[in-house]
């Protein structure tokens, strides 16, 4: 087990190195650089900046260097823990990101818990009450849930809340709370607001998970050991929960690693629509304005979280399933 984890951990830097090259290639790809789009923004607002000034700035940020040199500098700074300076905000990227990262993670964890808390019981119910009316309702819900883009759901909910209840449901805090330092009241305020975006984010995952849980459990319920358990006189609850539910659960755990990064990056679009203080809109803005080091830093963090998620699910699976643990 320790060797398995160690092996995977050793692979992590290699993967990150490959990703850093890929990401740098992508953020470098748009024609022009931040300063050309910066000059364009200035020009459209009426003020102008001279060619000499631009060149001086370009030199200062190292944008005039050949691309391999720029990459080398970037990676060397990354290794020293320096994520660089945001060209647009003129602030260290690490500050900008860490301001948003906490709430991004909170949102992801919240919707993740919501997904599992709904999906597992729903899946078990659907499988044990196959072809009951609630099973049909859940099946329809699952199909529609998977088919609805989550930003669409966010739009509909916002529209309903706005035009029928007269409340705006954007943001994660009330307007007067957003800029206050953390306190218990602010935390309560967060809880009041976070459930709706979490719900929006959770829907698609819930639908998919319920379907998988139902199918897995149905496979298990037909096996002879379930009949044995029943013949031994266990109550129906014990029959289902003690053995088949646990077995049906295993394949799901292996996909946790997929769901976690999906939640981070999935929140990107919903966060933009619902105007949440989230890492997603920050990335979007950085991409559009060619604030390349900020975009690069955020993309790297997404990659890191994705690799970490996969690793986590592999470890969890090995812990849960002795066959995999002993296999090597």
């Amino acid at each position: 087990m320790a060797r398995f984890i160690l092996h995977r951990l050793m692979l992590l830097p290699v993967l990150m190195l490959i990703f850093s090259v890929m990401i740098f290639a992508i953020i470098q790809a748009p024609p022009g650089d931040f300063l050309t789009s910066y000059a364009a923004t200035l020009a459209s607002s009426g003020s102008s900046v001279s060619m000499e000034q631009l060149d001086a700035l370009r030199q200062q940020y190292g944008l005039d260097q050949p691309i391999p040199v720029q990459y080398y500098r970037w990676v060397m700074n990354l290794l020293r823990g320096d994520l660089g300076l945001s060209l647009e905000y003129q602030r260290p990227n690490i500050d900008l990101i860490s301001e948003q990262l906490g709430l991004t993670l909170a949102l992801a964890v919240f919707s993740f818990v919501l997904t599992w808390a709904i999906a597992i019981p729903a899946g078990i119910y659907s499988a044990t009450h196959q072809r009951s009316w609630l099973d049909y309702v859940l099946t329809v819900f699952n199909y529609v849930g998977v088919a609805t883009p989550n930003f669409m759901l966010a739009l509909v909910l916002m529209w309903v809340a706005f035009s029928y209840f007269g409340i705006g449901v954007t943001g994660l805090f009330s307007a007067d709370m957003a800029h206050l330092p953390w306190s218990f009241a602010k935390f309560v305020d967060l809880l009041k607001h976070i459930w709706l975006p979490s719900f929006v984010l959770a829907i698609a995952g819930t639908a998919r998970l319920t379907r998988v849980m139902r199918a897995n459990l149905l496979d298990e319920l037909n096996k002879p050991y379930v009949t044995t358990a029943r013949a031994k006189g266990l109550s129906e609850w014990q029959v289902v929960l003690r053995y088949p539910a646990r077995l049906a659960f295993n394949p799901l755990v292996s996909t946790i690693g997929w769901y976690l990064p999906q939640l981070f990056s999935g929140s990107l679009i919903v966060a933009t629509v619902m105007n949440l203080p989230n890492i997603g809109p920050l990335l979007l803005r950085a991409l559009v304005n060619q604030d390349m080091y900020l975009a690069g830093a955020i993309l790297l963090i997404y990659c890191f979280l994705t690799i970490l998620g996969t690793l986590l699910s592999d470890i969890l699976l090995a812990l849960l399933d002795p066959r995999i643990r002993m296999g090597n």
Partner: protein
Amino acid sequence: MTAVLQPGATPGPDTHAAAVEDRVSVASNWTLVWWRFRKHKLAMISLGLLLALYTLVLCPDFFSTQHPETTEARQAFIPVQGLHIFDGWSIDPWVPAIVGKRNAETLRMEWRTDAEKKVRVGFFMPGPAYKFLGLIPSTLHLIGPRDASQRIFLLGSDRLGRDQWSRIMHGTQTSMTIGLVAVTLSVILGIVLGGISGYFGGWIDQFIQRLIELLQSVPTIPVWLALSAALPRDWTPIQVFFAITVILSLIGWTTLAREVRGHFLALREEDFVLAAELAGCSRARIIMRHMVPTFLSHIIATSSLAIPAMIINETSLSFLGLGIRPPAISWGVLLQEAQNIQTLALAPWLLIPGLLVIVAVLAFNLVGDGLRDASDPYSK
């Protein structure tokens, strides 16, 4: 098996089991798949729906009532004018007229439909000129106002007074094609690379497997965003369209390649492959003629389940302004109009393109599920 299959074309009362069995045993694999598929009612309905949508794709101009780019600032945010086929007891299609009144406080035009005044419409009416299938010039439209000077808005209009019905027809063309093209690209990549990986093995297999693992640990949405943001701003809509399909299929092929590889690994040891080798078939012939057909139906089912994901992703990208860009129209571009909550409260019909996304994705999922069940020879 026979009880399950019920080749139901002509199961007359005199058909006995032996005759059924005869038909089943000589039926080709595709016939068997079709017989099994036909029994899924929902999948059949969805298939009909998809065929209808792809009819729109062939010629959106014929189905639209106006040119999708005609703007008229004085006709912004006109509500849905429901199409009525019957007038009293006779077939005489009409839509209610719209009457506008300027709100004295907000100075905004407020429209409502007036069912007392009827605007007569007809089928196969002349309208704006277009080219049928891009070749034959025509002015014929499925629906149009009898009085050519009037504009009708079957699904309302947007902030620039463009007709949403006509724009949806054109958006359907882009969005449905992009899903299909992107999946076709993924399938080709998946079969070729997965085939090479599974058939040859060795270092090339190792290389392709590592590449797949690498691509699968890429956070898709952020990377898609970054790639689409990197597209030059001055590209033509056609170039952007193809770039977006390539971006979408770049990651989609990996799952397929894995499956194809699995099939190849399993089939490589089969007797019929050995027989083909001994008979002197070339490698390409063994792969294309003997191995691929055995799992092709399964691959088609899997890829039809991948189309909806492509459609949702395209819609999301375009919605954020990073996918298909105006003047090209797609469902995502149309939904961009609905981004603002105040606009949405004023004109909720701008959400209709989203409804279409849901319907199309649902239909693809149901057809895909039906196909998957039907293509599994051991299914019950």
